[in-house]
């Protein structure tokens, strides 16, 4: 692999990793507070892809309005899911709420197949995002360069939010101890809603950035990215926001280089992620940046 191919792969990998990181943040925040693997998160991401298609192809919105529309629509969808499917089960056993999450995922996939047909739909061009840009030997659409920048900015904003605001303090309290946080007068439902709003808006941004260099959206296109990003969150240490970003980068870059250096193994690139998960769980189950939590009775 010569230098320019190497850098080209670096750019692609970092860009893919940033998109993963944004989804992984959504997983890690919800898991941190509710101890729930939000199986529907990947499908919310897929729906955001469809919303973008509707906004630009069907409603002919300019791209800057389309982005806002997509974020708002995705957030509404996510909060509605939380209210309808997760909130009524807050007091019930963990398995019920996980089954409910799977039910939502199943429902979203099937509804997308039913409403938008199972055929893949072409993803539209978003204004300047697709313009190919050259730096030295490396050429890629602008979106590839923008994605990591967006991710880093969002990460900094989120770290500020969590560590230096009252809402962030309430979130940390809720993730440490749900019951105690409630007793301290924290509006727990309010905090959970905020968590879902953040998670879903990041999923929407990620969908726009992820699908832009890719040609198609289809009802199951959220499945694999969703699973991979949960793995990313676990690798970084579940419940830890910078950890999720690190995990996303690791998976994105590793996947890109695996496919580039061993083209014959490209069919196994998805499998690789899960091998990574198992290795991680064997040697450092708390993740790279996670802290150890003792199981309480």
């Amino acid at each position: 692999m010569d230098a320019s191919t190497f850098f080209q792969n670096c750019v692609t990998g970092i860009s893919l990793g940033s998109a993963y990181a944004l989804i992984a943040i959504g997983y890690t925040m919800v898991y941190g507070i509710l101890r729930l693997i939000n199986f529907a998160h990947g499908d919310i991401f897929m729906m955001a892809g469809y919303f973008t298609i509707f906004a630009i192809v069907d409603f002919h919105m300019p791209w800057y309005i389309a982005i806002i529309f997509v974020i708002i629509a995705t957030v509404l969808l996510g909060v509605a899911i939380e209210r309808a499917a997760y909130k009524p089960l807050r007091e019930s056993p963990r398995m019920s709420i996980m089954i409910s999450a799977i039910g939502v995922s199943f429902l979203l996939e099937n509804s997308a197949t039913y409403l938008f047909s199972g055929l893949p739909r072409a993803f539209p061009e978003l204004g300047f995002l697709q313009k190919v840009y050259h730096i030295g030997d490396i050429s890629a659409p602008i979106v590839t360069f923008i994605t990591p920048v967006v991710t880093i900015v969002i990460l900094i904003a989120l770290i500020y939010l969590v560590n230096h605001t009252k809402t962030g303090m309430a979130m940390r309290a809720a993730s440490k101890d749900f019951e105690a946080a409630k007793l301290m007068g924290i509006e727990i439902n309010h905090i959970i809603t905020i968590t879902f709003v953040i998670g879903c808006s990041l999923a929407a941004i990620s969908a726009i950035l992820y699908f832009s260099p890719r040609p198609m959206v289809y009802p199951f296109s959220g499945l694999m990215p969703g699973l991979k990003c949960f793995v990313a969150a676990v690798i970084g240490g579940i419940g830890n926001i910078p950890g999720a970003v690190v995990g996303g980068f690791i998976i994105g870059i590793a996947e890109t280089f695996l496919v580039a250096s061993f083209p014959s193994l490209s069919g196994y690139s998805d499998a690789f992620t899960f091998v990574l998960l198992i290795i991680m769980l064997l040697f450092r189950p708390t993740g790279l940046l996670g802290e150890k939590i003792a199981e309480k009775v």
Partner: protein
Amino acid sequence: MPMEFINKKLNKSTKLILTLLLVLACIILTYMLDKGIIGTSYTVRIVRIAVIYSLIGVSMNLVNGFTGVFSLGQAGFMAIGAYCVGIFTIPVDARANVYYLEPISDKIAGFVLPFGVALLMGGLLAALFAALIGAPILKLKSDYLAIATLGFSEIIRAVIANEQMWPITNGSLGLKSIPGFTTLFAPVLISAAGITLMVLLINSSYGRAFKAIREDETAAESMGINLFKHKELSFVVSAFFAGIGGGLLATHLTAIDSNQFKIAVTYELLLIIVLGGLGSVTGTVISAFMISFGKEYLRFFDAAQSIGGWQIPIFRPGLRMVIFSLLLMAVVLFWRRGLMGRKEFSWDGIYNFFRKWPWRFKKLMRGDYKTEAKTKRKSIAAGKAIDSAASKSKRAGRKADKTADREKKKEVKADAE
């Protein structure tokens, strides 16, 4: 005072006779279906699917419902079993036709196994994979198992369709010309045997340990139950029977490809066990039959329907699956017990259920129902009154404590001054 209803138990011998009669009825029913005396070949097909799904459903319930470990790899284990049976039972002379794009690998080209051996091998291979996945993950929180197994079942699919596997699995072309069932007895007997073995496991000391783990892991561990050993056992046994079920499915369908083992299959199985009741074998079997028949007879949802020339816009492909996913949501949200909860079918239960009817009817005639309801309401009210009185006294007590506290504080303050 109305008479209390007392649950009566049947004699042991009566129960045995009833069970034997039920088994006999099942055998006769299978025979009649098999010989075409009742039902059509279409019904036989659905019954076969229902029986196979019962086996796989019970195997999934063993992990999810009885052990409380959330595993979502059933589709992957089914795929392993199905491909094992498919690859090794296709007759040699049909193989050139099946592997027409890329010839079958020389090592297995002339290698044909009898159905039973191939089936067992599929089950064992699935169990081996389960043991490999379970070993690192089951020692940790079981949340990760859900993701790892879900990922595993997708990987199995990817590996089967991958280019390098074409000489063995025929890749995305899938396998066909798998010899099918000649009688209905084969799947029924194999499934029944599998379910019986799992029931025996559940009723053994291992099964009680599974249930203890489901109720409270920490408590079970402190009672001396080896968490990892039992979880792994339940997971491996479940994968074994899922593999067997997948093999049966391959023989039933006679043509398989990797797309038939998508995650959606696992979700459907989840619907079956949740509807039947997490932790109920008989519930799973009942709901497997309900879902299998429902899936076939609700096919009209997917076809365009019209009333007097006006086409109803909601009927189009995909509606059926939307309804099934809504059903899963509805059961989880509003009816978490499912059909059976954690109960099992028992003759005593049936007996008392029917005995209750005339009793209820008589009571209704006498008007006892109303009086009983009234007394109940009264007693509830009385209970509430007692409760509120108790809480009042408690509150009073607390008030007294508080005032005492305050006085103490004042004293302390005064002392300090």
